[in-house]
């Protein structure tokens, strides 16, 4: 495995060098410290908050709010608010204003429903879409919610089970659509997340009309033991221009060897859908994905690796980071977060020291996202 320092040279060549110097050593002209909306666990329980670069080079919790159970998906909202979704099977949504001024707003799952961990805001900011599970039937749903009140306006089937992340797609000829990852893993939400009957796995990618929920397409990988979980666009979808979609995978093979070697990335170009191999073991689990210039970054916590791929899926490089999972897109790269340390992968030279997180002992969860005010990719 390549060390961070050794990876630096390789990544410079790719335009993806780790840039993780102390805040005081940041290149001249850099704007205010970047702030990341994140969620973590620690001695105080679970929190959602802002991690910002500190003078000592660490990423410190600038603001935070306690949440009752683990959070998962996070959204930075256009109005300055932040939205957090409970980890599946979850029962709360939290809207929080880090700058203060308004009380936190909680929304509870309706009876017989559980949140699946992710939400999406429509570009006009009026609608919030949440992936959910019908606890009686096990079927997955998109909850269509008023973005202000968070109250549910409608429910649409996702034509699968275990729906997880969803993205907005403005490139569809017939109007905007939602792309939803049906993870396909049968679970027992009433007993936590016990997985059962993996032979019945049925993961799929679906496209739903963003106005009506009508099914516009459904795609599956040949290997039915690959669960589709997290999504990222390579560029911004626009009318008539369908960019590539990257999908982070979670392998559920019975055979440990098969699982270890399973791909963690699949690509979808609007018609074709294919898994991407890697020359190293990534332990069959891509926990998060973001687009980076010229490719993709996938956090692989079981392998302790940030895996870097080209746009077409060609293997580029791995960067070691213990429990690497959260990845947040930047214009020039990404922030990658491990359990209690992080790396900023971007342009330019500089040291490759990891950023520790403060307070010590916090364990970063699966996702984080860059807050507006710093350059970022869609």
């Amino acid at each position: 495995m390549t060390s961070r320092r050794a990876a630096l040279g390789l990544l410079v060549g790719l335009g993806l060098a780790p840039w993780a110097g102390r805040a005081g050593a940041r290149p001249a002209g850099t704007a205010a410290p970047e702030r990341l909306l994140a969620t973590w666990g620690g001695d105080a329980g679970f929190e959602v908050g802002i991690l910002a670069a500190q003078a000592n080079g660490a990423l410190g919790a600038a603001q935070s709010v306690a949440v009752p159970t683990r959070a998962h998906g996070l959204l930075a909202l256009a109005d300055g608010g932040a939205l957090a979704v409970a980890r599946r099977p979850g029962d709360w949504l939290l809207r929080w204003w880090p700058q203060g001024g308004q009380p936190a707003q909680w929304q509870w799952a309706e009876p017989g429903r559980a949140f699946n961990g992710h939400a999406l805001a429509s570009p006009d900011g009026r609608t919030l879409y949440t992936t959910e599970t019908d606890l009686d039937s096990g079927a997955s749903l998109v909850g269509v919610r008023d973005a202000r009140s968070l109250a549910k306006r409608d429910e649409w089937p996702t034509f699968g089970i275990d729906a997880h992340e969803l993205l907005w797609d403005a490139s569809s000829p017939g109007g905007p659509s939602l792309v939803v990852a049906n993870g396909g893993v049968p679970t027992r939400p009433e007993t936590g997340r016990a997985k059962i009957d993996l032979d019945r796995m049925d993961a799929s990618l679906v496209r739903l009309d963003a106005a009506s929920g009508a099914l516009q397409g459904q795609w599956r990988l040949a290997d039915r033991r690959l669960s589709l979980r997290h999504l990222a666009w390579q560029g911004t979808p626009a009318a008539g221009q369908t960019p590539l979609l990257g999908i982070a995978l979670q392998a559920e093979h019975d055979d440990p060897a098969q699982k270890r070697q399973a791909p963690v990335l699949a690509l979808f170009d609007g018609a074709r859908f294919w898994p991407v191999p890697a020359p190293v073991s990534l332990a069959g689990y891509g926990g998060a994905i973001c687009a980076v210039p010229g490719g993709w970054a996938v956090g692989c916590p079981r392998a302790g690796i940030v895996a870097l791929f080209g746009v077409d899926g060609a293997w580029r490089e791995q960067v070691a980071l213990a429990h690497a999972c959260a990845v947040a897109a930047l214009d020039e790269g990404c922030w990658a977060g491990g359990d209690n340390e992080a790396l900023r992968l971007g342009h330019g030279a500089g040291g490759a020291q990891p950023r520790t997180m403060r307070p010590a002992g916090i364990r970063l969860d699966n996702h984080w996202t860059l807050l507006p005010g710093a350059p970022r990719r869609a």
Partner: protein
Amino acid sequence: MKFRQLAAFGPLRGAAWALALGLLAGDPAAAQNTDWNQVAVPNYSPASVLQGLHQHWTLPRADDFARQAQGLPVAVKALCEAQAPAGQALAAARGQWQSTAHAWERLSAVAIGPLVARRSQRQIDFSPTRPGLIEKAIESGPGGAQAMERIGTPAKGLPALEWLLWTRPAAPGSAACRYAGEVALDVEREALALQREFQALAGADWPAAGPDKLAAGVGELVNQWVGGLERLRWAQIEKPLRAAKSKGGAPEWPRAASRQTAASWAAQWEALRSLGLATGGAQVPLPGQGLVPLETYLRGKGAPEVADALAAAGRQADLRLQKITRGPAPAAAAVLEAGRALARLKRVAEGEVAPALDVGMGFSDADGD
């Protein structure tokens, strides 16, 4: 906030008292005062842990649940055939429901084996029940197992029967009472099926089981024990309070209609405590001769520091749970403190117990999401 005015925290009677007193049956103080350096704790094999679990914990509890559940259709039938006013028959049916619910909670608080495979919790304890669906089911008048399979889980099981016995008590001779009888039979069928499956597990030749099966069994025990802690902490105790705070109105406690909230918490905690903590002082079972709580298992494996941490967090949780399950209705602060104590216990289990037992936590980051 005080819950004194809330029906959910009714006086503990009958079986509920027995359950509450059962909290004291294994004395945490005795375990606390035990000098473990003076106790020879066997190095239990995974096979002996699982054998003890199923012979001395799951099967007796499944037997008790089956016994109580078999009395449920009888009691409901007596109610349906009673002459009005049916106060005595209604009280008897309610009492049988309480006994059945408590037996179920003592078995299902840690969802192991057939409880997971059969989705028993969903089948007979789906919450919240849906009154509108119950009324539709009453109109459809299902008869027999096959017909009940077509009734959605939110309209049957113990919560639906609670609704039919307390919220809108079914009158003798009514369609609602006939439906209550079918719901009771449905619960009985599930109880008997669980009993059969736990009998098979108790009778299994655990010493001959392969390493994968044994590792999976111990892994399931630890994971589901943690899952049970979290379910009690969040879904049963903290969430109703926090949701009421943000939505307004009274907390929607589990088993509120039957005033069995405290008894339900007590039953679940008794199950969790008995599987996790050594409450018998210096009395430790011989391998294969009794239940091996996680604490004892850890001591036998030479991890006394982890066992001590588990015991300490468990004692704190025990004290907090006793405060909210015995005596007058608790204050909100006491309820939240009990939740925090359960959260601390869960952190010890995830962060120290599971690694010491070489168990991967299915609820952790590493499991994926």
